[in-house]
């Protein structure tokens, strides 16, 4: 950008939008967790919006030539390829006979898992829901 100062946008405005979006996100994520589909899609929209603002204004992508764009344009495609090619084997895999994130001992008991019903045994206090733990609140 040879023409220095005047980018034709107000940093402050962008910043305020980012701030508001973050506030909305946090409030939404902390107090309005149901329904999940709405939460997730809403948060995703906010996050992508924020990301785009940063990309477009703070990183000046709006004012860049095609050549700079062309350097990152392949990435969304590749990201999609990586994600979607992995899903059949991780997400929708019916051949998998264990639950992702669980460790089961030989008696079939969960010793280590994501499910709050099955707190891990004898290894610190890994779960926030445990009264003494309160890890979430520090």
């Amino acid at each position, binding site marked *: 950008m040879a023409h*220095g*100062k005047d980018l034709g946008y107000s*940093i402050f405005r*962008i*910043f305020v939008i*980012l*701030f508001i979006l*973050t506030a909305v*996100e*946090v409030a939404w*994520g*902390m107090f309005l967790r149901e329904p999940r589909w709405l*939460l997730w899609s809403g*948060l*995703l929209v*906010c*996050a992508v919006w*924020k*990301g785009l603002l*940063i*990309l477009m204004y*703070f*990183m000046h992508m709006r004012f860049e*030539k095609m*050549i*700079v764009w062309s*350097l*990152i344009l*392949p*990435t969304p495609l*590749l*990201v999609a390829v990586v*994600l979607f090619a*992995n*899903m059949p084997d*991780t*997400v*929708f*895999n019916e051949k*998998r006979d264990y*639950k*992702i*994130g*669980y460790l089961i001992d030989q008696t079939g008991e969960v010793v*280590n*898992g*994501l*499910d*709050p019903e099955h707190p*891990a045994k004898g*290894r*610190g*206090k*890994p779960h*926030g*829901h445990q009264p003494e*733990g309160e*890890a*979430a609140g*520090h």
Partner: protein
Amino acid sequence: MNISPAAIPAYDPKVDAPKPHHPIYDYDSGPPVNRGKFAIWLFLATEIMFFTGLIGTYIVLRMGAATWPDPADRLAVDITALNTFFLIVSSATMVKGVERAMVGDNGGLIKWLALTVLIGSIFVGIQAYEYAVLIKDGNLPNVDIFWSTFYAMTGFHGIHVAVGVIWNLCILIAAIFRKIPQEKYMKVELAGLYWHFVDLVWVLLFTIVYLM
């Protein structure tokens, strides 16, 4: 002219010896974009792919998991929200700094850059504190896959922030001691691009890891 296979031109010192005192001709051929900027965007593309590896792993593992704890039950969303706010502020101050550098205002640059470095360090500090508390509570990466992915993603992001702070610090020092003239503002802008990228990744990470 027919060149027989043996006709390899012989060495002729008059023609072939390098001539001393030659100017080095360094021509800029490409599209009108600064070399450094071109390179940094290439680098950022690789960074995108790097975080794709980490975040993609999280996404597919989480989608494949039967249950997943609410992040709010395990993580300190409030502090981190504050942290997110800090990082966004630092991005804005960075933009200011770059803007100052563009017009050759070294003093302004120092001011804004110092602010950026400061806020960036606060971010790293808060994250370190968060880690310390989590680890004290026994929430190590080996506890379950939630923590595995959590530490991998935020840890590598944290390293990136730290690198960004150091980078900015180097420029700050250069600005203080040597002054960054207007035509060298690109130096600042490159660091800025990296810094904003780190911010951008955090915006996504925060939403995905802490809120979703």
